[in-house]
């Protein structure tokens, strides 16, 4: 059961990376990185249990903290003028005058 859960998390991580490379807007990529981080935490905890070494949990706690701080950092420093979003409203149909 543990090994099945590990494989499932691994598949989820691969799908998140696909979204990270494809994702049209910037925020899709930030979301993909965040999700990748939380899945990595789970993967390391599960691997620790599978291999029988409980020291991996320290690493998992560190990853959780670091990914949180990284996402907050990204969002803090994206408040500047250069990152204003301009061209996402082209999804809406054009309105006739």
């Amino acid at each position: 059961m543990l090994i099945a859960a590990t494989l499932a998390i691994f598949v989820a991580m691969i799908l998140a990376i696909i979204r990270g490379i494809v994702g049209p807007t910037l925020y899709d990529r930030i979301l993909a990185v965040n999700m990748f981080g939380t899945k990595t935490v789970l993967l390391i905890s599960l691997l620790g249990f599978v291999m029988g070494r409980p020291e991996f949990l320290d690493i998992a706690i560190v990853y959780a903290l670091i990914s949180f701080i990284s996402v907050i950092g990204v969002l803090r420093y994206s408040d500047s003028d250069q990152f204003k979003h301009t061209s996402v409203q082209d999804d809406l149909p054009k309105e006739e005058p």
Partner: protein
Amino acid sequence: MDIFILISSSLCLFIGSFLCLSSSVGILRFPDFYTRMHAVGVTDTLGTGMILIGLMILSPDLLVFAKLVIMLLLTLLTGPTTSHVLAKSAFNNGLMPKLNKKPLEQSKIKEPAHRNLD
């Protein structure tokens, strides 16, 4: 007693991995950023929680159990906060959600026909 531990932890792990897989399917198939963020935020936190509870039932001694409890509290605290900060920052920088425009188009189709009668 042993079989009870095994069954309950397997159940928690199964539910947790199902939620994580569904969050990854959601992040690929949803149409807009805000819907994707909703999918990831909700199922990520809950899936992590279930898997950690499943691991807690299996844990051999008290130190491992304490570390898993700490990790669970941390995830519960940081998961929703990250979603909130992400959505707020995206909205403040101008990313608009994809809205459904169908009712407006119906009235627009009727208007030119009405004008042609004049």
